[in-house]
């Protein structure tokens, strides 16, 4: 029997018309997400991560395959799937608070005005923005804007939260602080999260599982790496965990070499790593050094 996931992605593919024929960005992408899981997806630019996220959000449509969330097919944008974009996507003519109340009001249409404001303020406080609620986005720093965006997404309490490189535009120091805030707010809400990142350390800090994508074109998800480091995790202590560098090396090795080698265009016809195109489940913490090399020989 196949296991039923909260979110199931089945045979997803995206093709664009090109000069000669079609360009397949990714194809046969399969994976599942459990309720309450924090999933990160890593891959080189152009492998279609953002397309996958947009399809999950319902903002874009797949050429083939489909997404099923909670037994229902995803066919368009929904309040059940919140999105945090890299460029914050705040409405610049509204204050921080009003950017959130706007969303909360739509989500919980039956709530009174007071309740909407109170709820929104609580989430602004959770991301450490109390006192700045009446400022416009242009009066906030990049980090603060992304905090508002995070507060907005969490305040609407979607069933699935999608994040497209939320910290990509922030400097390293700010990023670290907001990562911790994200962990805090996530552990309080037990939100299911699907997040794109380029940052290996960020993925290990935040994720339960990390999906690794091969390079495009015809990209696919090759591995699902388990992060077996107990929570709560903290930035400064996690690096001393015995499994940390095993996982990190595994991820970096994938990005540097295997993401190319496993690309469909490079090894056509040969063993496609796994026969059913399901990502191989890996737990680097349990792999011995000698085996790690053998696995992909």
């Amino acid at each position, binding site marked *: 029997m196949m296991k039923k996931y909260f979110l199931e992605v089945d045979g997803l593919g995206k093709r664009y018309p090109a000069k000669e024929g079609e360009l397949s960005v990714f194809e046969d992408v399969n994976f599942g997400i459990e309720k309450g899981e924090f999933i990160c997806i890593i891959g080189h630019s152009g492998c279609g991560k953002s397309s996958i996220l947009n399809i999950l*959000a*319902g*903002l874009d449509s797949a050429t083939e395959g489909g997404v099923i969330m909670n037994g229902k097919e995803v066919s368009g*944008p*929904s*309040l059940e*799937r*919140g*999105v945090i*974009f890299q*460029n914050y*996507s705040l*409405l*610049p*003519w509204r204050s921080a608070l009003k950017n959130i109340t*706007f*969303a909360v009001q*739509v*989500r919980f249409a039956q709530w009174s005005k007071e309740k909407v404001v109170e709820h929104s303020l609580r989430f602004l406080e959770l991301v450490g923005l109390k006192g700045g609620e009446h400022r*416009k*986005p*242009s009066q906030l720093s990049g980090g603060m804007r992304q905090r508002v965006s995070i507060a907005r997404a969490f305040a*609407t309490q979607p069933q699935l939260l999608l994040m497209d490189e939320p910290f990509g535009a922030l400097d390293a120091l700010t990023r670290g602080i907001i990562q911790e805030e994200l962990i805090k707010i996530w552990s309080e809400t037990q939100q299911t999260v699907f997040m794109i990142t380029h940052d290996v350390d960020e993925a290990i800090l935040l994720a339960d599982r990390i999906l690794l994508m091969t390079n495009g074109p015809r990209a696919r998800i090759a591995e699902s790496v388990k992060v077996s480091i107990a929570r709560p995790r903290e930035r400064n202590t996690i690096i001393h965990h015995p499994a940390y560098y095993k996982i990190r090396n595994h991820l970096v090795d994938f990005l540097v070499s295997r993401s190319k080698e496993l690309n469909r265009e490079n090894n056509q016809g040969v063993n496609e790593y796994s026969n059913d195109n399901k990502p191989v489940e890996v737990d680097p913490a349990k792999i011995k050094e000698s085996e790690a090399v053998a696995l992909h020989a």
Partner: protein
Amino acid sequence: MSKSLNFRATLLSVIFLVLMLGIWEAMNQAPLKTRALSEYELLMGGADQEARVPPPSAVIKLAVSELSHPFYDAGPNDKGIGIQLAYSLYRVLSGFFLAALIAIPLGFLIGMSPLMHKALNPFIQVLRPISPLAWMPLALFVIKDSEASSIFVIFICSIWPMLINTAFGVANVRDDWINVARTHELKAFKTAILVILPAAAPTILTGMRISMGIAWLVIVAAEMLVGGTGIGYYVWNEWNNLDLSSVIFSILMIGMVGMLLDLTLSSISRLIEYQE
């Protein structure tokens, strides 16, 4: 620093004004009487041989007396400057708001639908460059009312900048903001009101400012044609009366009112502006 800059700028403006008025005043003095007036000249009221542009002192004197009774009404050809300006403002504002009523919704439609944009664009491109006064004969014939015809002329000249700016502003709302509306499941109408309208509002208001500027330019010419009342008629009537002081005075008033109209709209646009 900026305070002293403002102070110095004001000082310089005043110096320029005094210089300009001084030169104007000096150049327009009546020629000295070199000889006694002939009997004929005395019989004709002792007028000068040639007409001169009145000096600023005469214009200022007239302005003071006109502006102290701006709303007097002594028959069809003798009304206060306030009444004439009010007629013109009434025409400009009614034509302008009628145009806004049609241009802004239509601009929304064109901005949101590429199909409508392509379908309506040829009409806009042909109609837009037509001088609004060219419509006047047709308007007079069809509407059969000079008052309504001049309002129509204002309407037709102020519709285009508003239409084009609204369409442009609406079409160029950032995809991110549209995506915010989509991920929050906003329906089309709510998206238009909550996201597109505030996002495009500064561009729409710029269009309104341009329209208002053009409308105020056109009303003077339209009233010269149509006659009866209004500041444009007033200028032409004073020219026929050879009262150049009044002509210069009304030119200045046209400038003043035009500036006030623009200031009003620019202060509204400052309210709805946002920084990204």
